[in-house]
């Protein structure tokens, strides 16, 4: 006869079984397999494997193309984080006023709808909006008497266009998080500031923004980690071009593993990405603790 304690333990493992079985099969084992793959050379036809040590990492880390895609990714992140979190914060501050209900509903719809819709779908819309000859945007630029812009064909502009799409799609997500944070600032703090004669702008700068700093930091980290994995939009809209000017790290991994059939180097580049994500997360945790400890 099992004791009550043993029964509870048994039940707990039973309840955890489905989730952890899935976790094991589709996350944990593939992750370990990736670790192994990164030190193997795999024959793409026979799948015969051979231990090659650091050779895959050597290949990836000395491949100028890999560093080019890494540079592109960080360029994308720098612009996308500023756009998403900066614009998101601006909009959240504006929405944090007393706005009539029906209007607020419409604003929420407008700013949040793109968040729900996949880039795989809206990329088609943007591809035509940005089209050089027939696009809507260049039409209005020409109407102003300005020369048309090669939104997706000029290699100095293409990444910028990708960022515009990214901000359009994701800014609503950050608006909602930041707005909730702003509304969580205790009312008595704001009341005290008002009585002390602080202007609304001073109150925002000196009280609200410092109060929600941890949430802003969360948004920056979240946008950075998401940006490191940027893939769908670029794959559909420019496929990395023109030249390699918009190719991201995940696209590099994808083409190594699935187009070139180099599983080992694909895994090695994915692992390098994981290390970078871990570092970003660690920095965020440290900074977050400093904020919280104040």
């Amino acid at each position, binding site marked *: 006869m099992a004791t009550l304690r043993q029964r509870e333990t048994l039940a*707990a493992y039973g309840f955890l079984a489905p989730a952890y079985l899935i976790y094991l099969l589709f996350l944990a084992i593939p992750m370990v397999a*990736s670790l192994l793959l990164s030190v193997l050379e795999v024959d793409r036809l026979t799948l015969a494997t051979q231990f090659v040590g650091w050779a895959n990492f050597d290949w990836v880390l000395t491949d100028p193309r890999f560093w080019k895609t890494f540079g592109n990714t960080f360029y994308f992140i720098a612009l996308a984080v500023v756009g998403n979190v900066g614009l998101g914060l601006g909009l959240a501050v*504006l929405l944090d006023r007393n706005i009539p209900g029906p209007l607020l509903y419409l604003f929420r719809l407008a700013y949040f709808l793109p968040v729900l819709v996949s880039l795989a779908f809206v990329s088609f*819309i943007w591809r035509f909006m940005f089209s050089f000859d027939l696009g809507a945007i260049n039409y209005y630029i020409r109407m102003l008497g300005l020369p048309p812009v090669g939104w997706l064909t000029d290699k100095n502009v293409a990444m910028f266009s990708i960022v515009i799409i990214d901000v359009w799609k994701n800014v609503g997500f950050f608006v909602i998080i930041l707005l909730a944070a702003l509304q969580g600032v205790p009312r008595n703090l704001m009341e005290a500031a008002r009585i002390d004669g602080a202007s609304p702008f001073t109150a925002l700068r000196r009280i609200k923004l410092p109060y929600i700093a941890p949430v802003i930091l969360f948004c920056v980290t979240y946008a950075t980690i998401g940006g490191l994995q940027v893939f769908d939009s670029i794959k559909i809209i420019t496929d990395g071009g023109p030249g390699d000017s918009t190719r991201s790290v995940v696209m590099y991994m994808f083409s190594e593993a699935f187009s070139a059939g180099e599983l080992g180097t694909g895994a090695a580049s994915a692992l390098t990405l994981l290390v970078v994500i871990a570092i970003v997360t660690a920095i965020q945790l440290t900074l977050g603790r400093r904020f919280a400890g104040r």
Partner: protein
Amino acid sequence: MSLAQASVTARVHSATRVIDWRNLPVMIVLGIGAIFMLLPFLWMFATSMRPASEAYQLPPSFLPTRLNFDAYAAVLDSPLPFLRMYLNSFIVAAATTIGVVVSSAMAAFAFSRLRFPGSSLLFGLLLVGLMVPHALVVIPLFYGMAAAGLLDSLWSLILPGLASPLAIFMMRQFMEGQPREYEEAAFIDGASYWTIFWRISLPQMGPPIAALSIIVFTSSWNNFLLPLIFVRKFEVMTLPVGLLGLSDSFGALSLSVIMAAVTMCVLPLLVVFLVAQRFIVESIASTGIKR
């Protein structure tokens, strides 16, 4: 203050106060921004209503001048099985949602209501899973799926989507905030753990289950990477990649047909949003606040 409370106070304020006209400039700025956010969707819909010959005509239109569903008929008549892909997307998204909700609710129940050895270790493992980029797991998954003979089947799209550490986190966080008295009373009355979970815990979890379902359903509906890698046949394809094939097969000539297809793909998401906007907004807001 939680967002739920914040929105309650906001509602009370707007009910009791008249419109504050000093905020008019703010409303105008936000309104212009909102119009720009919606323009791509308006253009999509207006273009889908244009006859194929006028689709590229400039100036672009943002409001349809007449109702013309030819392009929609052309999508359904296309050589690619659009309706089949639509159905596939529904099946994959629905199966993923049910699987994630049930498995994560069960795991959350164990973590927040039962005591057992290894609890914190197992929970810590989830943290690792949260950080893993998709890019890292798709290569081995591809070969695993191939070995199991699951490539080119809907299973290859459903199964990987079921692994969701984030869902377990969300559900556990919610359960921790719920009172335990009912469950304890039922236990003393001799109810089994399964009965307690199924009859008492689960019915209390309505709101987070609704929020989680929406998040899981939309992200599955939108998933691009898995069908791109795991599926070749259009009979088992889902919409995000299927749309790419559709646009290739029609070429650049039929902009209105492609926009009709995009409109049909976006429609369920719009419906989900209109029905459940409060749940979505509140659940996302809470991810940033809870720490």
